């Protein structure tokens, strides 16, 4: 996973609430056995006509938002399925940061595992950033994870909260499995205890 430190990039406005995972990447694109290549179908039904032509009114089909690396949206972003194809599609398109008032839990988890930073900010601040994101070539935000601030085009700073453990993993590009395996001895002894205490709990053998 790539570390996330600071990012200065175009922010795209997506003023929709409840952007579900089927919107981010419809089920018919989940047949891949890879993590890459999904960016072409990010927001597929919003982005393309049935015949495959781009819809000119969709923000990511417009300049400079084709190069956006930050997305500003409204409540409950990423609701629906657990498909990690949603963050994979965002990442493959180039999105490294999503800012919204809140996120669905599983999607929120999944973003961190892929080096994408989800930032929760109150609706009023999302509204301000949404205005910034409408500035076209000037819609540039800087996200500084170490300092926990978003710097607006006018230089004003917006502070955000983030879980310290997740911040640490993201800043250093650490993967969770490596972290957990540091506790391998504890897992072993937990399992040994369970085998005694819950000896009635069978394993699955076919």
């Amino acid at each position, binding site marked *: 996973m790539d570390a996330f430190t600071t990012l200065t990039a175009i922010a795209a406005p997506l003023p929709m609430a409840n952007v579900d995972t089927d919107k981010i990447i*419809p089920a018919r694109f989940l047949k891949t056995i890879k993590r890459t290549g999904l960016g072409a179908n990010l927001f597929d039904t919003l982005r393309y006509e049935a015949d495959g032509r781009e819809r000119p009114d969709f923000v990511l089909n417009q300049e400079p938002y084709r190069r956006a690396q930050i997305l500003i949206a*409204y409540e409950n972003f990423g609701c629906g399925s657990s*498909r*990690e194809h949603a963050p994979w599609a965002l990442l493959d398109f180039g999105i490294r940061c999503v800012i919204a008032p809140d996120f669905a839990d599983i999607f929120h*988890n999944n973003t961190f595992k892929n080096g994408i930073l989800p930032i929760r900010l109150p609706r009023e601040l999302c509204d301000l950033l949404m205005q910034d994101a409408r500035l076209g070539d000037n819609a540039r935000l800087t996200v500084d994870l170490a300092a926990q601030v978003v710097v607006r085009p006018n230089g004003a700073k917006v502070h955000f909260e983030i879980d310290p453990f997740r911040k640490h993993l993201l800043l250093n590009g650490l993967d969770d499995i490596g972290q*957990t395996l540091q506790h391998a001895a504890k*897992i072993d002894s937990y399992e040994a205890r369970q085998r005694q205490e819950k000896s009635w*709990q*069978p*394993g699955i053998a076919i």
Partner: protein
Amino acid sequence: MPQDKPRTLFDKVWDSHVVERLPDGTCVLYIDRHLVHEVTSPQAFDGLRTAGRRVRRPEATLAVVDHNIPTSDRSQGIAEEESRIQVETLESNVAAFGVPYFPVLDPRQGIVHIVGPEQGVSLPGMTIVCGDSHTSTHGALGALAFGIGTSEVEHVLATQTLLQKPAKNMLVRVDGTLPPGCSAKDIVLAIIGRIGTAGGNGHVIEFGGETIRALDMAGRMTVCNMAIEAGARAGLIAPDETTFAYIDGRPFAPHGAAFDAAVAHWRTLPSDADAVYDRVVTLDAAEIAPMVTWGTSPEAVLPITGTVPNPADEPDEARRAQLQRMVEYMGLIPGQKLTELVVDVVFVGSCTNGRIEDIRVVAQLVQGRRVAPGVRAMVVPGSGLVKQQAEAEGLDRILRDAGFEWREAGCSMCLGMNPDKLTPGQRCASTSNRNFEGRQGPGGRTHLLSPAMAAAAAVTGHLTDVRELV
């Protein structure tokens, strides 16, 4: 550990699975059961391979194929190439890593959330995960069960644990007698209508109250299945005699003395009487009516007697735009009666309502009636064993005679990854759980409802108040 203060069911299951608590409150949480399917696992197995890791506990893992597979004759294999590759990839992964697996032609194959409880793989007090959001279904047994992404699938395969922070506790209490024509599906749709699709964010919802207690296991699974549509991390129902009777004798459940020992433990799980919840919502069952969704979010739900809302009545601008989009996408006219909506397709199945109890309800209603002209109606059993059971009871005959298609087990038109899809503009009465844009096929229009309501729509050809038919 806070043993002295009263605890909820969630607290108890959580506490007993904490392997290690990190300084910031993140826990290394032990996972008892890991269910795996073909769509969200290939990249996880790949990750293991790249890192030279093995599956830590294959005997705590069970794999099935469900999302991609055709539900017509399968003896000739899968025609669609990408689906076939995904299934073959799972088969080579389970073989290489020694993971127990029900292949497509095994009668025990089916939708992962139907198979787990049916086989006794999912048990009370366990932590259960799967790379699928509707893992919340298994909470009906009193297990802490939740969906995870593919990176977490890899994490569980490698370590049998997850890094998680505890959720908040929410209690949804439903009391009173459910009116005729209503079922578990109507209860959960009414709950989502009340609290919204983000209402449960950050919480685990425990469903309690006398109406929930009175549900059979199939109904409880329907309710917990849709906890995720309310945004909850998981749904939970305290295990009781109904639960124990359901589990007794299932293939992978404990048997004999071990079963008794298990039940003794399971009896300690229900929330303490004075346990405190972060949020409590109460519903009166008597006020629930047969429900149907009209829009493209499960919270856009109304009693069948309702009319299509007018977006112009909504004061909030963003919300108004969203309602407007729903009305347009769904091809509706504000003020229109929901019972006027003509359906093209009726889909009975999915992990929400693909159990034998659901199929019985449909068969009973359509017996001696015919599917309305021009309607394509299908029943897709949740597992091969559900299918066998239905055939043993003669339900397939009743359904076929009425004009239903009777298919093989799988996810099917719940998400249209296999050939069962809506075409653009088609309107579907569906017993599944998601009505998002394009969920059942690009341009398709989904109305979520109960099996009884689906049966009623099938025979009349439009959304119908099932109470008029019984």
